[in-house]
């Protein structure tokens, strides 16, 4: 008998049922926050040096800014690949799967990876944009607090009886995956019908576009000459 439904169930469980109480919601949220910790300081890294010696060579601030946004996206790709390879390797080594089963599993994985990538890009851009306005030393605590708020809100969304509009980014990462897994298993879950893979991708793209534009506006308004090394 194929192990695949069981694995899909496991994946589904991993993405959904494991969020059933506040503590596990917080743990899952913090797990993803840890993936972005090395990248929350991209904008401000070597900032005084870069402002003086790189930016005057770039001629335009926008060029520097969009390079940073691109780097954030690249870093998120690396995080997703590392995370996904690790979790997939654990799965494959713990179960004996045929190539066709792995192919089916990869479809689910790709779904999750794309959403995880978008979530990580969003979170990194959010913290990096904030870092343009506040002290660098505040970024880490703010990231932790935001993660906890997201986790608590995720729990609220899960126990709510009627879900219409959800803005929680973690929900937009996990719920469509659960829909995918449920569809694969032939299970119908009416509670989360509103969440489709496409709608969540669009939601993240809008969120990311807003953050990129907001960061650009803030960066353009900075008096770079007055920024001191922290």
């Amino acid at each position, binding site marked *: 008998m194929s192990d695949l439904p069981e694995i899909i169930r496991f994946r589904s469980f991993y993405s959904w049922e494991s969020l059933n109480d506040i503590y596990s919601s917080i743990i899952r949220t913090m797990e993803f926050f840890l993936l972005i910790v090395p990248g929350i300081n991209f904008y401000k890294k*070597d900032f005084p*040096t870069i402002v003086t010696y790189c*930016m005057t*060579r770039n001629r335009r601030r926008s060029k520097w800014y969009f390079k940073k946004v691109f780097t954030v996206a690249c870093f998120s790709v690396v995080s997703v690949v590392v995370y996904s390879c690790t979790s997939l390797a654990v799965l494959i080594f713990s179960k004996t799967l045929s190539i066709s089963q792995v192919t089916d599993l990869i479809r689910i994985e790709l779904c999750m990876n794309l959403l995880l990538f978008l979530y990580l890009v969003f979170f990194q851009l959010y913290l990096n944009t904030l870092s343009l306005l506040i002290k660098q030393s505040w970024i880490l605590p703010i990231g932790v607090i935001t993660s906890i708020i997201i986790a608590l809100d995720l729990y609220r969304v899960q126990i709510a009886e009627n879900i219409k509009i959800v803005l929680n980014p973690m929900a937009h990462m996990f719920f469509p995956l659960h829909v995918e897994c449920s569809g694969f298993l032939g299970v119908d879950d009416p509670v989360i019908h509103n969440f489709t893979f496409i709608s969540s991708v669009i939601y993240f793209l809008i969120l990311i576009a807003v953050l990129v534009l907001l960061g650009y506006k803030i960066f353009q308004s900075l*008096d770079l000459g*007055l920024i001191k090394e922290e």
Partner: protein
Amino acid sequence: MEFIEIKNCSKIIGDKVILDSINLNLHKNQIYGFIGRNGSGKTMLFKAILGLLKLSEGEIIIDSHKIETGDSYPVSVGVMIENNNLWSYLTAFDNLKILASIKKSLNDHEIEETIKRVGLDPKSKKTYSKFSLGMKQRLIFAQAIMEKPELLVLDEPTNALDKEGVELFKKTIKQEKERGATILISSHSIEGFNELCDRVFEMEDGRIINSEGNL
């Protein structure tokens, strides 16, 4: 025609006037000195010229190119200003290579030649963090001149340099002028400046209070 036009340039932060209605016309291929004690506004004026400072009033035009407060810097400029931090874990060569990669205008040989010009060893494996203050200053000077910019903006360039370093600096500045560069240098002391500069401006409280020279 002037190379740099500074028109009624002011910068006010809170209730403090940092730059006070500065008007200057600077010609191409000259060396200009700006002297004044700490806090007189030299560095801020340089930052404004570089487009790193949003002016409260006025405008700066370099080679017919207006320096926008938000998104535009001088076309060809070498900078040595206030911050002498480069990447601490890299050697002199690697630091310059990173900076040169932005414009992609130099090859490895040219980078090595620039490092030699300022009296450092391009083959040295010593990282920037292990440099003395004088060596750091030399390397910062090297990054400013390496791409043969039309404008050199040098804030307190002789700080931390020994006598030999200062002489090498002066010699290199004269060579840069011969090449065609326009050079702005600031210092808190006039000592040794008169012989180097075509014109010297004295600054105090964000204003130009005096100028000396033959222009």
